[in-house]
Each structure stands twice: as structure tokens, then as C-alpha cells.
């Protein structure tokens, strides 16, 4: 969904640039002030790499992982905004993938809206159904998959609304929205699959690490952390 230059008029690009500056600035501050986030750079590189791998969705169209929901679930929403923004800036500046003037729009859609939607859906699903099965990694993977799909579809919907507001072509909102959302529902299935698989893999690894870390700890300390760690 990398928006090239020329799709949006200048005011819309400027407004989106403002929104993304504020959002990314806030996220960077949060990440810097918070706990050290292990694996942030690695996840950024993974999302960049995964975005290179377009998968066919039929009808001569392809899609690729967006990754916002994945990043938010694995590292939290603030770190996800940072990851996604770095990917988008590198893609636009180094690889001419996505416009430079449209960078604010791309960041707003894919680095801010997508991670926040994915994170909200994941947390809501976990809160609604997750309590009883909180130790089930596969259940988390399923929730992550739905969050991934939702993040892509919502971003496509917001693109359509933005295009209606500030697009350079005069096309009815309904037509663009119907085409964008139906196409991105299919892409969302791929997003769901990849997000689910990666989240399950990450949770398995973390559970193993947590198991190792806890060996030899005092009982009290161990109980204190294990209650939380297992809640992965």
C-alpha cells in the first residue's frame, strides 16, 4: 500500500506529514524513555525483508506483509510505530518505494494506524477470550492473525477516505473504498497467516528463554515472574 507521489494534493500530504511527525516523535520518546526493547532493530529488518516478498492474491494482483500489527503485538505499540516508520523512510529514500512527499501519508496509514488497530484488536481479543486460555500460544497466534487482517483492512479503508478528501483524481468514495477493501481483505489473509506464524514462533522462543532464566532463581522471585511470563 505504498502511496506514490502525485496521488494526494499538497494540503493532504502536509497534514499527514504533521500527524506522522507528532506520532513518530511521541513513539520515539516513549521507546527511548522506556525499558530497553530487545530485538527492535531485528524486527525492523525482518519487516523490511518480508515486505519484499509479494505473494499473489489472484486476478493479476499481489500483496505483501505490512507488519504493523505484528510489530505492535511483539514489541508494543510505541516500538511498532518506530519500526514501521524506519522501514517506510528507508524504502522511500533508498529504494524509491513510496513517494517522498507522500511519506507522511504512508507513515500515518502503515506506521501509525495499522499498528494501533492491530494492537487494539489483539488486546481486545485477549481481554475478551484470552483470560481462561492465557497460556495457549496457539490462541495468541489466532488473535494475532485476526489483528493482522484487521490492521490491513482498516488502513485500506482510511486510505479510501483520505483519497476522497484529498486525492488528485475525482472518484466516488464508494468505488475506491469497495475496490481497496475487497483487495485488501485478500491481502489481509496473507497478513493474518504471516502474523500468526511469527507471533507463535516468537512466543515459543520467549517461553523457552523464560524457562531457562528461571532455573536457579529463588522461589519467590520465580513465582513472581512466572505468573506473568507464562501469560504469554
Amino acid at each position: 500500500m505504498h502511496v506514490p507521489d502525485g496521488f494526494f494534493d499538497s494540503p493532504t500530504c502536509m497534514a499527514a506529514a504533521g500527524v506522522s511527525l507528532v506520532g513518530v516523535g511521541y513513539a520515539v520518546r516513549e521507546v527511548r524513555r522506556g525499558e530497553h526493547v530487545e530485538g527492535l532493530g531485528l524486527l525492523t529488518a525482518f519487516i523490511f525483508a518480508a515486505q519484499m516478498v509479494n505473494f499473489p492474491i489472484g486476478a493479476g494482483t499481489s500483496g505483501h506483509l505490512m507488519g504493523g500489527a505484528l510489530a505492535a503485538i511483539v514489541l508494543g505499540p510505541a516500538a511498532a510505530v518506530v519500526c514501521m516508520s524506519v522501514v517506510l523512510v528507508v524504502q522511500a529514500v533508498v529504494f524509491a518505494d513510496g513517494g517522498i512527499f507522500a511519506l507522511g501519508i504512508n507513515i500515518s496509514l502503515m506506521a501509525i494506524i495499522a499498528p494501533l488497530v492491530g494492537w487494539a484488536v489483539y488486546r481486545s481479543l485477549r481481554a475478551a477470550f484470552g483470560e481462561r486460555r492465557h497460556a495457549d500460544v496457539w490462541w495468541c497466534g489466532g488473535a494475532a492473525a485476526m489483528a493482522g487482517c484487521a490492521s490491513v483492512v482498516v488502513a485500506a479503508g482510511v486510505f479510501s477516505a483520505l483519497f476522497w478528501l484529498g486525492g488528485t483524481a475525482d472518484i466516488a468514495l464508494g468505488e475506491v473504498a469497495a475496490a481497496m477493501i475487497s483487495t485488501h481483505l485478500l491481502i489481509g489473509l496473507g497478513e493474518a497467516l504471516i502474523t500468526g506464524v511469527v507471533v507463535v514462533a516468537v512466543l515459543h522462543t520467549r517461553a523457552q528463554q523464560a524457562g531457562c532464566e528461571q532455573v536457579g532463581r529463588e522461589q519467590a522471585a520465580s513465582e513472581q515472574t512466572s505468573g506473568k511470563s507464562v501469560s504469554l
Partner: protein
Amino acid sequence: MKWRAGALVLLIAAFVSQYASPHPDGLESVADSQGFADAAVDSPTSGWWLADYSLQGGLEPWIGAAIAGLVGCVVCLVVTRLVTVNADLIPDGSKRKSAVHKLSASGGATTRPTRNNRKAD
């Protein structure tokens, strides 16, 4: 683990990406079908030597794409490190401890551990 994951990332960027579908992506295809694809203009960086994930020059296309993928991964990693550099420089709490805390953080959503309970651990 970190190194294995890193190797996997580089493998995806350099080789798996060679099998990417060449079809237009979701937005491009919608722009085509809705008739606004012509509105797109070239990015100011489209003349750059890595533009469109291919090296300009006489190299085999697949080698150019592989190099582009590897360069992109490294740049992403370095830029992320630079942007979040302060997080790495926080003196207290070893990385080992923070890894455990991140576990609980992602399990219990974003309950980011405060300095107090980090020390209590």
C-alpha cells in the same frame, strides 16, 4: 537465537524475495482499475542507484536485487539502533533482565515495567 533470526532475515531479503510475485500490489491494481494510476509521479529518489530494489549497472538482475535486499536490512537495523540509541544506553538493568521483563510486558500487554519493579526483580 538472535543470530539465527538475523540470518533468516537476510535469507528472506536476499533470496526468498527473488520469488516475489511480479504482479502489481493491492493499491497499484486498484489505481489501475479505478483509473487514477496515471496520477502517480516518479519519486525524487527514483534515479538513485538502488531505486526499485535493483542495482543500476551491468550486474545480473538477481544479484542486484539480492544486494538491494541485504543493504536495506542493514540500513533498517542501523537506523533503528540510532533512533532508539538512548534505550541501549540506559545503564541500570542488564539486557538479560530486560529480556525477561519484555516477556511479561508483551504477555500482559504494555504493562511496561517501571524502574521500581525492575529493581525489585
